[in-house]
């Protein structure tokens, strides 16, 4: 829709504007704009500017280190990396997902529900709620979780406690809140004790209530600002994610489903071990993050969105009652087969938060969760592929090993990478709609960032590196002269000097 803004012709004659870095997202990215003499936006790009090289340096390591090595790509969704790697190395010891013991599968699912719950809570309450509660163009000093805790103590504290609960689920299963150990090739290294299970059961009903409150909150925020919330940064796209065999929303294991913007099926129950036949990644010179696309639709039209919006759009139903009721309301608010609103990512994310809380309760009541039959063994293989629905979307881990069990090849497609094109499109939509022809202001910058933030990008995962730079916006004219400059100070003041 806004592809024409990706690369401007005669860019040397255009003014450059940079938003650097994008804040309140995890990791480091920046936006650059090129403007013509009438301040019309001619080019807009989200660049991911760091690089780590995981795919290369894990080569030469023994495969069994992978789950604990690669989780250090990301301290926000370490469990998703841990489990995607574990699913891949299960195959290296000859174990397919259906062959895991029921206790191992359920412990992993419990661990992952804890992960998605804590990540979604973190993103909504700690990172995005200031925009959504105070307004996108609110005072910079208010745009943080501390201000939310002051202004809306109940909401803020519920967010902190929801996240805490997810972290505690992770700690009970894997020993540590961040970078624990739990999954091993062919299963799990420990079960839950009765005492651990009972500890988690104590608060679970409260968590379900608070999760339901948060869904009600985002619905109110979204629906009280229509049509703005349906239009801001909104783009039409394809959607991709895992799905259960019966069409239910799935976060741990399933086949790939992809639908187009009309809701028509592109792929369904597609075996993820064949992902390379369906998805390739394009490299562009201006970003360390690659651009995946569906081969059947080609580079131009094959890009897609992943994550909560994709999952809630793609599924036929959610298999927990409160989240399903919330999904029906969500779908009903739009009169299209698919909800394309970018800000609806927040709403979909909180529906999933509720689903996680409900699912945790169900699993804790399942006797298998304290079962002791945890590991399966099979025949060694040389290639393993593990795919999972991480909080931010479909996550692919692919490894090859030699006869000594040493990793020889690795390919990782992290969730945020799949949203690369979509985030760029949303940035271009906001730039074209709200920026073109206008004078630069700080709130304007935050609009660009709100668009990116909706995707909950984990640029740290996506680039396998992170960092931040001061936020400074410069306007340079065709002669290369600085004509305008905005600087955010530490106390939130904005300075302008030419």
């Amino acid at each position: 829709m806004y592809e024409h803004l990706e690369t401007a012709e005669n860019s040397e004659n255009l003014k450059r504007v940079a938003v650097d870095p994008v804040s309140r997202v995890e990791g480091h990215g920046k936006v650059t704009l090129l403007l013509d003499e009438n301040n019309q936006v001619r080019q807009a790009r989200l660049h991911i500017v760091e690089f780590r090289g995981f795919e290369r340096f894990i080569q030469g390591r023994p495969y069994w280190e992978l789950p604990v090595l690669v989780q250090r790509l990301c301290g926000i969704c370490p469990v998703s990396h841990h489990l995607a790697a574990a699913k891949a190395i299960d195959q290296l010891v000859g174990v397919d997902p259906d062959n895991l013991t029921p206790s191992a599968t359920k412990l992993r699912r419990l661990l992952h529900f804890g992960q998605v719950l804590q990540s979604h809570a973190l993103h909504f309450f700690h990172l995005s709620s200031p925009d959504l509660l105070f307004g996108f163009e609110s005072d910079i000093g208010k745009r943080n979780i501390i201000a939310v805790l002051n202004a809306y103590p109940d909401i803020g504290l519920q967010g902190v406690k929801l996240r805490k609960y997810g972290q505690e689920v992770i700690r009970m299963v894997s020993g540590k809140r961040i970078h624990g150990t739990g999954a091993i090739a062919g299963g799990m290294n420990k079960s839950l004790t009765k005492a651990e299970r009972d500890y988690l059961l104590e608060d679970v009903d409260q968590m379900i209530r608070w999760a339901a409150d948060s869904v009600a909150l985002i619905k109110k925020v979204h629906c009280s600002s229509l049509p703005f919330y349906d239009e801001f940064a909104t783009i039409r796209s394809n959607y991709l994610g895992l799905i259960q065999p019966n069409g239910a929303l799935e976060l741990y294991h399933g086949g790939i489903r992809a639908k187009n913007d009309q809701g028509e099926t592109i792929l369904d129950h597609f075996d993820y071990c064949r992902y390379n036949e369906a998805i390739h990644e394009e490299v562009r010179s201006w970003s360390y993050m690659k651009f995946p696309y569906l081969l059947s639709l080609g580079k131009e039209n094959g890009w897609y969105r992943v994550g909560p919006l994709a999952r809630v759009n793609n599924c036929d139903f959610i298999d927990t009652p409160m989240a399903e009721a919330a999904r029906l309301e969500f779908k009903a608010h739009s009169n299209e087969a698919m909800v394309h609103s970018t800000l609806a990512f927040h709403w979909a994310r909180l529906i999933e938060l509720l689903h996680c809380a409900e699912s945790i309760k169900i699993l804790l009541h399942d006797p298998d969760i304290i079962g002791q039959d945890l590991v399966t063994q099979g025949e060694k293989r040389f290639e393993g592929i593990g795919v999972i629905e991480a909080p931010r979307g479909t996550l692919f881990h692919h490894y090859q090993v030699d006869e000594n069990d040493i990793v020889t090849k690795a390919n990782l497609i992290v969730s945020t990478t799949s949203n690369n094109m979509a985030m760029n499109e949303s940035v271009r939509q906001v730039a074209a709609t709200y920026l073109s022809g206008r004078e630069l202001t700080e709130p304007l910058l935050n609009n660009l960032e709100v668009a990116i933030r909706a995707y909950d990008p984990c640029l740290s995962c996506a680039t396998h590196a992170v960092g931040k730079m001061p936020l400074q916006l410069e306007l340079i004219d065709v002669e290369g002269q600085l004509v305008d400059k905005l600087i955010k100070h530490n106390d939130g003041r904005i300075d302008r000097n030419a």
Partner: protein
Amino acid sequence: MTAKKIRVATTSLAGCFGCHMSFLDIDERMLQLAEVVEFDRSPITDIEHCTNCDIGLIEGGVCNSENVHVLREFRKNCKILVAVGACAINGGLPALRNFIPLEECLQEAYLDGIGVENPQIPSDPELPLLLDKVRPVHEVVKIDYFLPGCPPSADVFWKFLTDLLEGREPSLSYELVHYD
């Protein structure tokens, strides 16, 4: 507490944000902290430059020119600078790339990877320069304290900060110190 609040800045260089997440794991103690501390530049605020801070917490090692720049800004503006976690202290996991030439890492990701189309190494002037190796932060600036762990636990952050805030020399008990 009527005294002026202590200003704390935090940043993540070549880290995974796990240390920041572990800091947030102080959970509801956040409210207590907010009474005596205010956050300056940090991934959880929109403040992008730190100035006149009392404490600076650095997560992650140094992997590119921009990390060097940010680290120097922190040293200049923070009275006490703390290296938090394995990555800041010795480069951590990302430093595994130090054993491999940088070109090979780039080649693997952008030229020889599975399913890569339009192979090329990103080279736009908008992308900052990578260092040949990932370095610990104390090789670049003076560091006052080191908090080990991957990540240090929430209790480590809590004990360290409350000691400092109450004017004691920080000390961690045996159980709190770990090097995972």
